[in-house]
């Protein structure tokens, strides 16, 4: 995801809690990142309300599929990482 975040690979961000929601989810964190961190071509990051094909989403180094995908809860100090599958060799 290097390109998408202006060549910064690790971005620490305070994602604001949305009013009316109980708990921040990965979905909300992704939407916030798309709107606030992406410097170019957001379509390389998301597709609809989820992540684009070929991107693995991790919550604290664990595949989000094991944590509830879009609905996975994220709390203060949690790390959400996006890894693009690579094809080069």
């Amino acid at each position: 995801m290097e390109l998408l975040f202006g060549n910064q690979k690790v971005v620490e961000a305070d994602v604001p809690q949305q009013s009316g929601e109980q708990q921040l989810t990965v979905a909300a964190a992704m939407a916030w990142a798309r709107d606030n961190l992406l410097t170019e071509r957001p379509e390389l990051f998301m597709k609809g309300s989820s992540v684009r094909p070929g991107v693995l989403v991790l919550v604290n180094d664990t595949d989000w599929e094991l944590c509830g995908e879009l609905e996975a809860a994220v709390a203060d100090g949690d790390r959400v990482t996006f890894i693009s599958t690579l094809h080069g060799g």
Partner: protein
Amino acid sequence: WDGMHHGLDKEQISRYSRQIILHSFGVQAQARLCRGSVLIIGAGGLGSPAALYLAAAGVGRLGIVDRDVVELSNIHRQVIHKEASVGVHKALSAAEACRALNSSILVETYLEGLKPDNAVELISEYDVIVDASDNAPTRYLISDACCVARRPLVSGAAIGTDGQLTVYCHGEDGPCYRCLFPESPAAGNCARCVDAGVLGVVPGVIGTLQALEAVKLLSGVGDTLSRRLLAIDCAAGRFHSVKLRAKSPACIACGTSPTITAATLPSYDYAAFTGQAAANDA
């Protein structure tokens, strides 16, 4: 000393003595390497160190698949080839280097590349498969064929200063490439080394680690990277190990009712699925 019935001759005992005296490896693990076989798909940046280290380690039969010839701009990362091999078929050049390192092993070459109509048959002839290819359609093809043939797959990739490594299709619950990425990325998102560039030593690190995983799978020694993905940021010097999902029952390649089978795979359109033509100039 568990030296009975290992089937190694005197020269092999001497050649591999430093692995044999290693307590956690030993003569039986070495004998399993010598009886085993690995198919390396791609004799480029990843395949170069993978082939060298597997030949040196004593894997009994190595298959090398590539369809391109060596170019001068390959050599900064494809260290199995020499300047004098520019213009020579990569699989042949790599095989020659492997034989020069170890004349006691068998090295076979496949000069047509991996295709849907030969993939399952070819992969079935080997114990462990190493994906050292460089493009999305070939990566899906290899993973699918490994599901059909039930072979463990050591998958590596590198671009720029980044590398990735994992083992697919292994054990009870190990996922395949499609379990992780059921939908192919859009063609524009798939950087290849030819287009985006790569620091030569990066595929070197990943390809060497692929040899390590293949040795562990063949010998039965150590924990392989099934359900774990290693992501390396070589510029920052960061190594990141992440936990992956189990195989998906709904996966069309490795699930409970796969639609990709020995019968259907040969006619699957990988170019259409990925939006890219296959190339194999790794």
